[in-house]
């Protein structure tokens, strides 16, 4: 068995290949930094520095062939900087910045958003039609990394990931039955209808444990109390306690409506993580290590990866026989191409582009540069 294992671990790349990968990634990110910073001021140089950090992570992933560990470190670092900028700015005496339009909030208010776009379009305000920018970005992400957004880009998921990495071994073995894994999807449907019906983001005011602002608290004391109870229950239960004890991303996999939406829309992404049934030795390591309960055990002899897979790479790294490749176009053309490096490039590029705005700002603010 050990000889089989040694022979099949082939994901690490040569030094020159890794350097080329890293340089190309840096080049793309540097070009974007120049475009977004607009001049060669301090913002540009910090963005350039951040591009270098992302490229370094890219080098480490490609050179070592290990995705999950480095991805996780980058993911947590971005989440930490995100919350520093938008949530904990008071603690560090840095300037207050307006929180970005939350992508988790987008999912349960999708009907409201489409309705407002429809009204804008029909009233002649199509020039400020938000769907042109947000919709394009959404489509771009879905057609490229798909569900990978949840494990590479999402600034909120990084918190869940951080707490799931606190302990070395799980204290409790948490497992969600297949039926229960669909709860976020039902939650999303419920929120879509209720938010549209009440004309307000119900998820943000009642269920979101990662609120960036206090704008969603109700004015009525009893209602506000109920909101606070629910907020702390979900925060301590699903973002802190359960991830620490089980080493699973419980908020992402049991509650997050964005993850549910992405699990459907992300199917358009050509990249997929699949278990090669012929190679699989049924050791169950992928099942144990998956942080979002996306590996289904049909019977002890069969494991499958569901549409809830975030492409975090944990199962790919842990598989002793490399039976879980990151491949593409299997369902569309019947061809199965090993294009893991392209996926990794795109994921790191998206991560770099989307995080560069707030990371550069928070660094400048911490350095006291105006």
């Amino acid at each position, binding site marked *: 068995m050990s000889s089989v294992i040694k022979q099949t671990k082939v994901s690490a790349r040569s030094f020159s290949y890794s350097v080329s990968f890293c340089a190309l990634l840096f080049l793309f990110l540097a070009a974007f930094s120049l475009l977004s910073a607009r001049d060669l001021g301090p913002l540009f140089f910090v963005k350039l520095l951040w591009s270098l950090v992302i490229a370094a992570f890219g080098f480490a992933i490609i050179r070592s062939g290990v995705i999950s560990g480095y991805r996780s470190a980058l993911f947590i670092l971005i989440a930490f900087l995100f919350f520093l900028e938008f949530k904990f700015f008071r603690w560090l005496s840095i300037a207050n910045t307006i929180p970005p339009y939350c992508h988790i909030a987008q999912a349960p208010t999708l009907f409201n958003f489409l309705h407002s776009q429809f009204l804008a379009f029909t009233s002649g305000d199509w020039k400020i039609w938000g769907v042109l920018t947000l919709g394009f970005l959404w489509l771009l992400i879905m057609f490229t990394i798909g569900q990978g957004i949840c494990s590479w880009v999402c600034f909120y998921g990084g918190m869940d990931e951080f707490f799931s990495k606190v302990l070395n071994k799980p204290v409790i073995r948490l497992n969600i039955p297949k039926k229960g894994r669909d709860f976020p999807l039902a939650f999303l449907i*419920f929120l879509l209808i209720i938010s*549209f019906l009440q004309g307000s983001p119900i998820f943000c005011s009642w269920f979101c444990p990662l609120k960036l602002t206090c704008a969603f608290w109700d004015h009525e004391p009893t209602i506000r109390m109920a909101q606070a109870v629910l907020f702390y229950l979900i925060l301590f239960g699903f973002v802190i306690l359960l991830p620490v004890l089980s080493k699973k991303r419980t908020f992402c996999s049991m509650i997050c409506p964005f993850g549910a939406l992405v699990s459907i829309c992300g199917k358009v992404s050509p990249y997929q993580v699949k278990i090669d049934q012929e190679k699989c030795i049924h050791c169950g390591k992928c099942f144990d290590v998956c942080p979002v309960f996306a590996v289904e055990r049909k019977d002890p002899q069969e494991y499958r990866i569901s549409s809830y897979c975030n492409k975090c790479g944990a199962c790919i790294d842990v598989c002793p026989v490399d039976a879980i490749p990151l491949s593409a176009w299997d369902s569309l053309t019947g061809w199965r191409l090993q294009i893991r490096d392209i996926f990794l490039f795109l994921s790191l590029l998206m991560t770099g582009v989307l995080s560069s705005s707030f990371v550069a700002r928070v660094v400048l603010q911490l350095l006291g540069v105006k």
Partner: protein
Amino acid sequence: MIRIFLEGLVLGLSTGAYCLGMCFVFFMPYLCVEGKQNVFENFKKIALFLAGRLIAYVGFALIMGFLGVSQHNIFNARLTNLSLVVVSLLMLFYALTRHFSDSGFCKSLLSRSNLARLPFFLGLFSGLNPCLPFLVGLTRLWTLNSILGGVVLFVAFFIGTSIYMIPLIFVSFLNRVERVKQIGLFVALLSSVWFLFVGITGLIQQ
């Protein structure tokens, strides 16, 4: 009368999408679980639901007409919140017994209760919910000063909004996939708990 009828119809047609939201949240999960792969069977269920709504609208218009404008505030707020609590409890009972249908207790409860009649009661009590179109219709009702006019307004409103229910006939075809049934049950459970909370807080705050 024709003008009032047209007013109600246009009101129903223009605001029916919101109205559908309120009915969707209670009726869609039920159809996802109980719906059959047969248009006629589904039509019967939707007809029962619509009958419940029609009775709710007409009954409401009549009662409001008899009581008059002076009573509308107290009566309206309590009635709508009470109906919300009732429909939520109905849905909660249904979702829980269906979800735990493997247990002996739930199985006996399910066998004793007639689920075929549930759409009628869902329609009856969700028809009185304080959704936006309903409140607009109610505002117009106060200015009519006519019992018959109120009934005509709400019947026309019912016809206008019912057109939006037609796609519901096809919802149940989704439940060919077992997963859809389970998701439907979860939605029913979430909706019932949410509206139970809304209804109870509404009653307390009065």
